[in-house]
Each structure stands twice: as structure tokens, then as C-alpha cells.
């Protein structure tokens, strides 16, 4: 890799990092667990790298490592997205009703 390409990649990394910081900062605490599950699924994008290693099938050694890597990251992708969705489905609003403003007169 040339120095130029490396610098381009560093630009990508730094800008993506800033984008991440700005976006995640706005995620409410309520959703922090689903957020972790989601980012976990997203980081399993190393699947892309392991698919190439496995598919190119260059040496037995690299193929075995690639195979385990593809299995591990597929588990993360599939499990991660399913679990995030399962959690998000549980978050419901209160059924709409006249806002129960703590009225003073009802109680002693």
C-alpha cells in the first residue's frame, strides 16, 4: 500500500469516527443496549474480509482460519440483527389516554 492510499484511509477513519461520535451522542440512554447489539452486528463486517480469505482458498492454513472467521462473524451478523430487532419490538409507548397530570384534589 502506498503512503497516499494510507493517508486516504486515515481520512476515512477519522471522519467516520467523528460521524460515529456525533450520531451516538444523540442515542437516548433508553436504547443503549439495543445500540450495543446493533453496533456489534455492524462490526461483524469483518465477514467481508474473511469471505475473501476463505474463498480464495490459497493455503490449507488460511482456509481453515477463514472458515472459522466466516462462521464466527456470520453468527454475529445473524444473531446481532435478530436480537436488536427483538429488543426494539419490546419498546412500546403507554397507551394514549388523558395525561394523568398528578391532580391534587383526588387524594388526601
Amino acid at each position, binding site marked *: 500500500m502506498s503512503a497516499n492510499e494510507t493517508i486516504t484511509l486515515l481520512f476515512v*477513519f477519522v471522519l467516520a469516527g467523528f460521524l460515529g461520535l456525533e450520531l451516538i451522542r444523540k442515542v437516548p440512554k433508553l436504547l443503549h443496549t439495543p445500540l*450495543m447489539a*446493533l*453496533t456489534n452486528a455492524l462490526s461483524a*463486517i469483518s465477514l467481508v474480509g*474473511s469471505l475473501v480469505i476463505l474463498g480464495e482458498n490459497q*493455503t490449507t492454513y488460511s482456509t481453515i482460519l477463514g472458515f472459522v472467521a466466516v462462521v464466527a*462473524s456470520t453468527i454475529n451478523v445473524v444473531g446481532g440483527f435478530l436480537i436488536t430487532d427483538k429488543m426494539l419490538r419490546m419498546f412500546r409507548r403507554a397507551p394514549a389516554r388523558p395525561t394523568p397530570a398528578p391532580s391534587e384534589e383526588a387524594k388526601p
Partner: protein
Amino acid sequence: MRQHFVELAYLVSVIGFALSLKWMTAVTTARRSVLAGEIAFAIAIIATLVNPAITGTGWFLIVIALAVGTLIGIPLGLRVPMTAMPERIALSHAFGALAAGLVGIAHYYLTYHSTTKFDTAVLGFEIVLGCLVFTGSLMASGKLHEMLPQRPIVFPGQNYFNFAVLGVALAIIIVLVFSPSTTWLVPILIALGLVFGVLLIIPIGGADMPTVIALLNSYAGLSAAALGFVLDNKLLIVAGALDGASGLILAIIMCRAMNRSFRNVLFGAFGQIEESVAESGGEHGNVRSASPDEAAEIMKMARSVVIVPGYGMAVAQAQHKVRELADALEKEGVDVRYAIHPVAGRMPGHMNVLLAEANVPYDKLLDMDEINPEFPQVDVVLVLGANDVVNPAARHSKGSPIYGMPILNVDQAQTVMVVKRSMRAGFAGIENELFFNPKTLMIFGDAKQVVGELAIEVSGQRDAISH
């Protein structure tokens, strides 16, 4: 030409990932974020597979590996109870790091004879990171699952030892940079990474887990990004950077909520608070205790009740009983809300997920900053398996190990009820002066059982049965 197509497809994927995170910023759009992530992933995989270098055997193996991963992933995604979520998340960090680490190792052996110094350095770093997150996450998961002892394990000179291990790993990376063909050093590097992951987690106690899980999340992202540098793959870099940023922010939020410095966490100096415990407030007043039926009477008379859940609620799996109690109280015209401390439980947002599972509407779940100004107007606070996060000593007692930690000011409410098994101290090992406050009523017993009884008393079902 093919390369350009792949790069453009990755660009679309990156947009999908960014949208996915953006939609996570509001509950109303959050489910869309999963869909965006899935589509982005599908595009990335398809683009990657359009690759003439993939051999026939390669295709065969890819299909099998994807199938095996999917078959394991589905039950791991669908069958996991919400109470087991922290260890499940830690386990998936381990899988992600394992994949990143293995790809790095394979790449090293395939390319070491024709690689640049920069690439080797990044690759060495990536391998260590992948290995340490792998074992670290397994350790964290085991501790959370209570397969391993939860209490911190410390030994003299621990930090020096850890730094020595890290130093040797660094030295090996430097040697590899200048002579990449000394491949026999790579297994040693891998072993050091694996050992370092274990060393990093053993001194950590249960209450520090939220920070650690967030940190491991961040490291897992960084190892994916490092892999992106090595493979010259911008998609990996972006996804890894997003994940790294996310874990970092969560870890910082957790640190602030425990009044720890971030440096303290980064260097694994956890568990030190536990050692500095010793002193506790001298004068204790009397403890007032109440039975569930007495407590239920007081709650029924209240205008507003705030429930403060903690790890104890998760352990006792009391969230469904809590919901029953809240329903019964609401039927009596009582306003019920929940106060969630950022580090309550064992991972960021733990309590929110548990209560959502029990069908508690999310608009009843209030952050510390939202609820704290309102406590003086609250009639009854029910503290359920929380301890240090409601200890007023954090506000005024300079000698206390939790001094300065932001807490839920429950002592400002009219009446405080604390459900607890015994008078045992919390994780920090300190007495909680809240329990000796004249406003406080202790209800001793198992959280699930006590809350269940409270629900029955409030709804008047027991009277209906006995009469």
C-alpha cells in the same frame, strides 16, 4: 472495472450503516435502523462475492460456513432471555474479535513476504487487539454468567505485570516490522494477546461491568477498522470506526456515572475502589422495617410512586412482578414512574430492556437527570435491588469511595422503601446511610417475592380470597 463496482457497492453499504445509527437516535425510528443495517450488509456481502479469485472449493466452503453461522446465530438471537443479555452481548464481542483476529493472522501468513512496514505494524496491532478482545470478552461473559467468580482477582504488581506483557507484545511487533519473515514470533504474539485479554478482565468486579462491556465493544470495532487498513477496505474502516466510537461514548457515559476517570478505566485499574473501602460512617440510627402489607397501604395512599430498579431486580427476575405492582397502583390512581441510573445493572441500558420486556411503556422510564429535580414532589420511592446509586454519602461524605458519583436523590422524597435481602453493604462495601434515614422503611426479603406480595396487597386480591 470490477473493483470500481465493488467500491461503489461498499459506498452504498456505508450510507446504510450511517443511516442505521442515525435512526437509532429515536425510539420511533429505531426498528428502521435494523432494516438499514441488514440491507447494507446484504449489499456488502454480494459485492464481495463477485470476485473471480474465489475458487470452486472456495464457493463450497463459503456456503457451508455461512449456513453453519446462520444456524448457530438464529437461536443465539431469538432464544436469549433479556436477563441474559449482558453475557450474550459480551459473547458476541468475542465472536467478532475472533473473526477479525483470525483474518489478520491468515493475512499475515499470506502476505508477509511482500508487505510494507506500515502494514505489518497495523497487522501486528490488529492481531493483538483481536486476541485480547476475544479472551477478554469470553472472561466478561463467563463472569456475567457466573461461570467464573464475579469478585475481582488482584495480585501484587498486577499493573506492572500487565504492562510487561503488553511491552513484550510491542517489542515483537517492532521485530516483525523490520524482519517480517520471523514468522515463528507470530504465535507468541497471539498468545500474548490472548493472555492480556484474561489479565485485563480478572481484576474487574461485577459493578464495573457496564464500562468494560462498552470498552470491549469499542475495541472490537477498532480491530475491525485495523483490519480495514490492512486489507485496504474502506467499508471495514467505516464500520469499525462507527463501532469504536459507539463503544467509546458508552464507556465515557458509564465512567461519568460512576465518577471514574477515563484513564483509570483504560489502563485496567479497576477494582481499586474495593481495596480502599475500610471506613464506614460511625453513627447509625435505627433501621425501621415494614411488612409488605404496611408498605402497600402507604403506596395506595400516595399520589406518585417512583420505582428505582437495580441489579438486584435483574438477579431476582422481578421485572414482571414490578409491572404487576405498577398496574395495581395505577388502578388505584397512583402515578408510577421508574428512575434509571446510568450504571444500574451490568451493561448500558440494562434496566430499560428488562422493563421493556415486562411491557413497561418506555415513556415511564426516566433518566437520572430527568427525575432528580422531581424527587421532592414524589410521595413514595421504592428502591429495588439498587444500593450505591442511591447512597447520599456520594453527595457529602468526602472520605467515601463513592464520593462525587452522581446518584438518584431518592432521600428527597417523602417516604423511601428499600427492598433488600439483608443489611449487607453494596458492591463498594460501604454502609448506605439511606437505610438509617428516618424516612426510610426497609422491607426485607427477595425482590421478586416482596414485589409480588406488594402487588397482591395493593390490588386487594388477598382480601377477596380470605373473605
